[in-house]
């Protein structure tokens, strides 16, 4: 079996008496989309936070490309090639779409310490940003201020920023949230093509998208993994049906 690119071992996170992650072990292998589903409050975002470094686990470890990154900063993990999109868009609202995308591009080309030359005159950076915008279909919005984008366009921009980093693995927290049928379909097709570039750990509520995309699915409830398996296995699992699919599918 191929080595996983990303792996968590026994992640546990408590908020007071609440156990948001309870010994979560999950892995992401090359070329796959691994979906994580579960009801609201199951601990999906907390899991992603621990993988990316914004939430410090109480127990357990995170491994990325064979390195134990549990004690590394968010920036260090990103530097290793972990590309994240947020559940609630984290974008510079006053800046344009292009500027937001350039932020990723300039980090990827390690040029944030260039103080003199205009960033818009740097052809390489702009080309890199434009390529990412083109891939998510936002090219015609490149001069729009982020605050003036629709919700769906912000979701697309989140993905574009992650793309500029050419990550080794994507971690996406509900990228389809609030997209509408049309948008979800387009993003589903896009993510489908993305898995060859880098595997995706995909937290998602949209079950159509999950069943269309996932190679494997893990079901999270009350901080614990109930089951991990292929789409067919998860669909057939009686425990999962009662815990989750019963209400949502």
């Amino acid at each position: 079996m191929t080595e996983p690119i990303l792996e968590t071992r026994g992640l546990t996170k408590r908020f007071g008496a609440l156990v948001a992650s309870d010994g979560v072990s999950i892995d992401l292998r090359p070329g796959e989309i691994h979906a994580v589903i579960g009801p609201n409050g199951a601990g999906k975002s907390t899991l992603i936070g621990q993988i990316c470094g914004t939430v410090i686990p109480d127990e357990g470890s995170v491994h990325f490309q064979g390195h134990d990154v549990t004690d590394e900063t968010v920036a260090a993990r990103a530097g290793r090639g972990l590309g994240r999109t947020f559940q609630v868009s984290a974008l510079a609202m006053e800046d344009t779409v292009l500027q937001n995308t350039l932020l990723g591009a300039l980090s990827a080309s390690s040029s944030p310490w260039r103080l003199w030359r205009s960033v818009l005159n740097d052809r390489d950076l702009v080309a890199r940003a434009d390529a990412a915008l083109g891939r998510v279909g936002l090219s015609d919005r490149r001069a729009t201020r982020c605050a003036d984008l629709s919700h769906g366009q912000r979701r697309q921009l989140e993905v574009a920023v992650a793309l500029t980093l050419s990550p080794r693995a994507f971690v996406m927290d509900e990228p389809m949230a609030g997209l509408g049928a049309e948008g979800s379909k387009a993003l589903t097709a896009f993510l489908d093509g993305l898995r060859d570039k880098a595997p995706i750990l995909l937290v998602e509520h949209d079950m159509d998208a999950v069943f269309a995309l996932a190679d494997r699915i893990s079901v999270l409830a009350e901080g614990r993994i109930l089951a991990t398996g292929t789409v067919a296995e998860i669909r057939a699992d009686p425990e999962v049906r009662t815990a989750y699919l019963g209400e949502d599918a």
Partner: protein
Amino acid sequence: MIPERFLNALLLGGLLGVALLADWRDEPFTITLATRATILAIAATGLNLALGLGGLVSLGHAVFFGLGGYAMGILAFHAQTYAPVELGPLAIEGTTSMPLIWVTAIAVSSLAALVIGLLSLRTSGVYFIMITLAFGQMFFYFAVSWSAYGGEDGLSIYVRNGFPGLNTLDPIQFFSLCFVLLCLVLVLWSRLARSPFGLALNAARQVPARVETVGLDPKRLKLAAFVLSGAITGLAGALFADLNRFVSPSMFSWQLSGELIVLVILGGVARLCGPVAGAMLFVALEHWLGGLTEFWHVWLGAILLLIVLFAKGGLVGLLSGRPASHD
């Protein structure tokens, strides 16, 4: 509405025009006022880097202004007394050369900004404001008690320091020197704002989480901005001391830090020439209103209130018609 570029040219042209006209009409005092506005504009442009681009509300920028001032005062004092500055085993000759004084002022204030920035950037929001304020007070009381350099009374310097090829005692020549420095600092600010660094800093101000997620450290970006900002304000402090031929602890006072913030807000936060507009208005009000009433600060306060309530982009935002990019 006036395009911002044109407005900037108008402001700088106006400042230069006032000084040249005053020189022609032989009114050295007016030139001194224009020079004062120019130097305050440099100091506030420094602050505008930390505050406008980095979102760092520093209530301690007087530290850098004061350090620049004392760098000038101490070096010139030792040049007057022909006694070297004793720094432990090191003995540094005093100097009356402006370029040397400026380099010292910039070095000392960047170093202070590095240390203060490292400590205060561990916090944010109101704690950041309080820590920078506390540093300001520390320097203020240190200067008050530093009797070797005048303590509370300050230190008078009897000759203006020199610049190769210029007669710096001639008001218009000293003004021109300051004006050129202001233009250089503005060029630096505008290049920075458009550079990759400026873009990343601007994002770090708005969404630090995003900046981290692309692999950059928002604190380091802000620290770099704080150091550059302190260096520019330190340079202004050295010029200010040369203008007055006098340094005193008041250069370290929190009132001065507050005034620099007021200048930036009056003119327009994160606007290239916001500090220039703010400094010109401030000096004009200080002169005209200050001549009419002792309580001119009341009127300054009223104007500030109006700007904050109704024109968040400051004077530059109001006149250029481009609303505040952020508050």
